[in-house]
């Protein structure tokens, strides 16, 4: 039954989009990858942050495909699917759509970089309020919460290896050494790399790379690292619930607040700033797993306060 209502809601949304096509177009469109969930949370926060003056107009990205709007002043695409949909729409939109600034929100840096490379922006300002945490913050978390460990292992996937050099640069001043594995091989699977990283590391830092961390591999990784008594530091609260010992992450609302700052900057006529990673963040700790591994980790709010102080008191 809830699914029925959601379908109904989207139908209504599309209907209204079509009906309203001749009305004055809102200046900011927010295109969602999906209804509800993190997208709705992000869109709601963005609307709240921007206030009544801006009145951003929130639509499912597919509505844009059929709408015959005049181009808006700014499109905020929430999620990768929305970003890709909007890019497609903009590509077909002709001259008038060619200049519309685009702000991607809740997308990973890797996706933003790839889209930027594939769609030379030309005259269109293109930026992003990214979902990824700064690498330094993730290492700072390891250092702050598990100060007894120095050797941080990272499983190498096609995505993670792109950031190794940057990660190494961040690790060094913190007194951490990075142990990376050879690229996880599709034929051998994750096991040999996992075994190596367990042998060589005291803690494993998981970075989002679907070829390594996915719902199929998750069980294997968590069980194997747990048996070896190696804590896994992940990137989302879902991983912490699943069994990672902790994670630093930003909520959709926190990413949206960063996006709102960028939009306000654009509204002030200073153009879209360069892609930004979230300023606000949370730390989640799985106390049960930590206790079972014999680890004592401070309360998440204490860790967050300390990390914020380290980042300059912001």
């Amino acid at each position, binding site marked *: 039954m809830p*699914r029925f209502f959601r379908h109904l*809601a989207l139908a209504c949304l599309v209907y209204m989009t079509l009906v309203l096509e001749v009305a004055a177009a809102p200046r900011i469109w927010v295109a969602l990858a999906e209804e509800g969930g993190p997208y709705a949370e992000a869109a709601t926060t963005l609307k709240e942050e921007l206030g009544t003056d801006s009145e951003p107009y929130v639509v499912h990205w597919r509505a844009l495909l059929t709408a015959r709007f005049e181009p808006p002043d700014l499109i905020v695409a929430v*999620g990768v699917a929305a970003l890709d949909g909007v890019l497609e729409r903009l590509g077909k939109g002709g001259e008038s759509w060619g200049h519309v600034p685009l702000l991607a929100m809740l997308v990973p840096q890797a996706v933003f970089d790839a889209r930027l490379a594939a769609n030379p922006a030309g005259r269109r300002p293109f930026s992003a309020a990214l979902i990824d945490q700064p690498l330094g913050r993730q290492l700072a978390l390891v250092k702050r919460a598990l100060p007894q460990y120095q050797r941080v292992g990272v499983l190498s996937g096609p995505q993670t290896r792109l950031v190794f050099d940057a990660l190494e640069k961040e690790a060094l001043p913190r007194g951490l050494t990075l142990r990376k594995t050879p690229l996880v091989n599709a034929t051998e699977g994750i*096991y040999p790399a996992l075994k190596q990283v367990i042998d060589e590391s005291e803690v494993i830092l998981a970075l989002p790379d679907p070829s390594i961390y996915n719902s199929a591999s998750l*069980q294997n990784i968590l069980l194997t690292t747990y*048996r070896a008594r190696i804590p896994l530091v992940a990137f989302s609260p879902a991983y912490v*619930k699943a*069994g990672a010992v902790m994670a630093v992450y930003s909520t959709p609302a926190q990413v949206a607040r960063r996006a709102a700052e960028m939009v306000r900057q654009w509204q002030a006529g200073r153009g879209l700033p360069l892609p930004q990673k979230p300023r606000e963040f949370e730390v989640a700790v799985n106390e049960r797993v930590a206790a079972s591994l014999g680890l004592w980790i401070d309360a998440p709010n204490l860790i967050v306060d300390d990390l914020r102080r380290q980042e300059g008191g912001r």
Partner: protein
Amino acid sequence: MPSADRCRPASTDFFVTMFMSDASKMKRSMAQQILTGLLVLLHAGAGITAEPTELDYFDALPTVLTVSRLAQPISETPGAVTVIDRETIRRSGARELADVLRLVPGYLAGGFNGANPVAAYHMPLDDHGIRNLVLIDGRPVYSAYYFGGTSRGMMGVLLEDIERIEVLRGSNSAAYGANAMFGVINVITRNSADTHGIGMSATSGEGSIKDSYARIGWGNELASFRLSTGRRSDSGYGHTHDDKIISQLHFRGDLRPAHDQELMFLAGVSELAAGDGFDDKLGNPERTVGWRNVFLQGQWKRQFSEFNEIKLAASYDEETYNDAFLYPVDPSIRISSSGRGRRLNLELQHNFNLAPDLRAVWGVGYKYEDAVSRPLYNTDEAVSIHEQRLFGNLEWRFHPQWVVNAGGFAGFHSEKGSYFSPRLMANFHVLPDHTLRAGLTESSRMPTLFELASDVRLYPQNWAALATAGSATDRIAAIMAFSNLPFRLFYADGHVAKEELESQEIGYFGNFRRLNLTIDVRAYIEKVRDLIVANNHGSAPGYVFPNNLLVLLADPTLVGTSVPVVTFGNMSGYRTRGLEYQLRWKPLAGTEFWVNQAFERTTWTADADMPMPPTHATTIAWFQKLPYDFDFGLIHQSIGAMTWNKASDQLPSRRQLDVRLAKQFRIGSSRAEAAIVVQAANGSLPVYQTGTGFSLERRAFGTLRIEF
């Protein structure tokens, strides 16, 4: 946002169905998952890799490390626990499981000879280790056949296969049933997913030590397997005939048929040839005893939710025992304890949450044990017992600082009726790192098959030879032969009752994180009653007392001498008070100290020739990582004067120093380690009973290990 109840254009249904997903639950629809899967495959095939999306951050994931998969923190366990991990086992230099248990406070390692190593908690009551429950991956390994001993079962695991040993100190009958009267030694072997590849080791040294081990592991994320084999041999103690060779082959498979299910399958065979006997004892001459164990074991777990798990376990053990010799005085007498024993063990366990702060476990079990041995039971039929079991425990966290465990185990024994072992234990976290523990438990041990049904008879034939032999026993046997009667060695009339133990304990667990130090203290009062003991009885019930025959033989020296039949009965018992602690300290990254001490006072309620444990025992272990991948280990144990099995033969206080030096290195991509161990480096020390003259000699051996 349009409101759903006001407009629902039918024409958009298709559109909606096509593109909507259950976003509010943050789950991708099956179609999307298939599509994503296909895309990933296509990308992989094209050499393009999947890129992350926000779903990697937001998608809900199942809880993998559920409560039942997590080891319970020691501060929350209902009782004292010592955990010894794989690395410590290796660094201890131990070759036998019983030797590793020297690292557990309150444990005494011994054995009636070097081929039968046992470990006893607090009280060395018997030679076979029958009052501890030893579980290997959940499978009980005490002997169903003979005395219910664990010495042989404990040898039936390869130390290299062990992940960790969890010793639950103190009675655990409330959770594990009647065999766990003095605690549980829980051996957990390595998951086969962690042992892919090849591993080998070889050991050689003094005391005829020659050990070898090899394993091969293979599989993938969903199914892993390991085949391991090993052979261990040594010459045992000094001054006795106790050489042993044990050869083993084990298989373990770990499968994940579904994300919420785990299947474990184990099988193994162990074969032991152990020296026994004495060159000067006609009734117990030097010989080699054979023992063979075959087992099959399976365990299936299903996780319904984070707090709801069901576990089904089954194991089958079969052992054959081969020990027979001809009595030199009368070779027509064949003294034998050969035969076969079997055990089937089934258990179903369910863990779930009754409320967020109230966790429950309950289960049912069944065990069947039988033995076939004409020499021991005087029948060709199987002698058997079976027991239905019901157990449960509630873990209540009514306050963040409190964990209260209340539980019990009920058994329905086919011969001895029912028993119930309850436990109440409270853990109070005074501060997050400082926990006080107090509890009461009652437990029982049911008699073994041998204590219930043994009937060992010899049939002397050559009375003339016996009559002229030296000992009274022989001459009595001669009388038996003359009158055509069997000569009875053991007779259990089945009237023996269960042993009972009542234990009160208080404990403290402290974790001093700044110092990297943990300490676990346990103070206890244990009262044992109705202890089952073997008695030399004047006459076997139901048999003619041979006084009239003695007269016939006209040997006045034998008048009043009885036929020494061993029977089993209950005696009053004892009371013991004690305190033990284990301290673990890592002052530096590569330095680790373990200190265990145990102090004990025992009072027997009956004045008899009963064993006395040492009043104090101290073990200090120092594990030190050195530069250039060298590793040093030292274990020093001092044990006060004590007796094994009987009070009249006191073993003086002893000290044993074991030292190990190892170097780790690489051969290509393989990891290797070479180690030298010297056991009893401080010189030979007496073991078991002084009267036997047995000694543990200083012996050095080297080990080379390699893993591909």
